[in-house]
């Protein structure tokens, strides 16, 4: 409630969202509370398979958050079935799969396949991790839109979302 928050002044941003600037000078975006009708992109970062290394996935999640996206992290050891069900419940626009353990040739296409079965293949899927170059064409042919291998700068990964992911279509 604005009137109860002394020192907080509403400011109007040109895009129609409402920003609130407090007197310490920091800026917070307050577009959610009022009916602006702006879709906020939601991303699921998922770790399919038995791979127990999620440092990379966590760093990616953090980078997405810092770029202003809402990121749902699933945790380790997920089956494609669990990931797809969670993605539908969370109504995410994109799934980022991370695999460092070599099972990507099964896990990534299986995820896309399940999304199709559930009528949710408008959710964009991309992947990352230790993925040999020769596997990439097959994965892309299976519907994984992009693969990010080690050494890809974070801003490339983040910018890819802005360029390739739109909020999902109407129900």
């Amino acid at each position, binding site marked *: 409630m604005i009137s109860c928050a002394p020192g907080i002044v509403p400011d109007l941003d040109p895009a129609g969202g409402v920003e*609130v600037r407090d007197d310490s000078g920091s800026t917070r975006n307050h577009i*959610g509370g*009022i*009916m602006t009708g702006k879709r906020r992109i939601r991303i699921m970062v998922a770790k399919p398979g038995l791979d127990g290394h999620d440092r990379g996935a966590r760093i990616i999640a953090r980078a997405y958050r810092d770029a202003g996206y809402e*990121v749902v992290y699933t*945790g380790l050891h997920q089956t494609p079935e669990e990931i797809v069900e*969670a993605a539908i419940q969370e*109504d995410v626009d994109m799934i980022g799969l991370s695999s460092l353990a070599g099972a990507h040739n099964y896990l990534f296409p299986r995820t896309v396949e399940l999304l199709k079965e559930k009528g949710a293949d408008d959710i964009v899927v991309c992947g990352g991790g230790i993925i040999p170059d020769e596997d990439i064409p097959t994965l892309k042919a299976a519907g994984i839109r992009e693969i990010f291998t080690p050494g890809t700068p974070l801003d490339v990964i983040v910018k890819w979302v802005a360029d390739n992911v739109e909020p999902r279509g109407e*129900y």
Partner: protein
Amino acid sequence: MNDLVENVVKGDIRAVARLIRDIDDGIPGVREALKALYPHTGKAYVLGITGSPGVGKSTLVDQMVSHLRRKEKTVGVLAVDPTSPFSGGAILGDRVRMQRHSLDEGVFIRSMATRGHFGGLTQSTRSAIDVLDAMGKDYIIVETVGVGQDEVDVVKSAHTTVIVVIPGMGDDIQAIKAGILEVGDIFVINKADREGSDKTLSDLRLMIDMDQKKYEDGGWKPPIVKAQAVFDKGVEEVLEEVEKHRAYLLETQGEIDFRRSPKRVREELMDLVKNRVIEEVLGKLTETGDFDAAVEAIARGEKDPYSACDELVLPRLEIH
């Protein structure tokens, strides 16, 4: 929109997921959907779980879901995590602890970000509760970090509010006292194997006992349960206390008031009205350059902010 509502009532996962998204994103058509949905609500039992970060709320919720599922109850979970005030983004990590229920059709889990709403968090969470209620969930568990008035309001609107603490946080209890002790119906000391759990227990008991008069007059006396949620210890006891509190509410308020207690309805309606007014007035402000013009005029010393406020708001109060 009508199809959407119909499918929510039928329990269609995609429809439910989308309607909650529409609520969160503030899609204008959502109001009509919520109107149509309202007659289907008021059946679920709503539990609010709150406590500082790291006390084990998500783990407790995960275990409670398992217990409720064993009793063949269906469960909806709304896990609220903070939005970064700097980027507007959020990492919603509560699901990590609950993901084992992902394939269970009797469980629907949704992560929500606080998004820095104008008191709108309360409203959008309540609306999301209505959606899960209408889809037919028996229990709805809302989990929030109990910081700030909005989040306290969220758990306050639950039938039963569970406050989770851990031993050895000392002043933490003081912090709770200031804000949310009053709204706790059940206290859980999680990670009770840690040093200091007896001290925490006696601190809590002392605080609760200070309201002795209230209990003598028939008020609910909040029980304290020691638990180790990660090992599934004490979880059943928490749920037993929930059922006792539910029975207490039914007995003291009666079936009808229990479903829609006038106090809760009053708060909900007040929030809706406030948000609607803010929305309409700010929405109209964004259409013109009046706000910026007023800022400049005040900065130049030509106008005082109070008159400027009147000039901005009063003409815009005529809604429709």
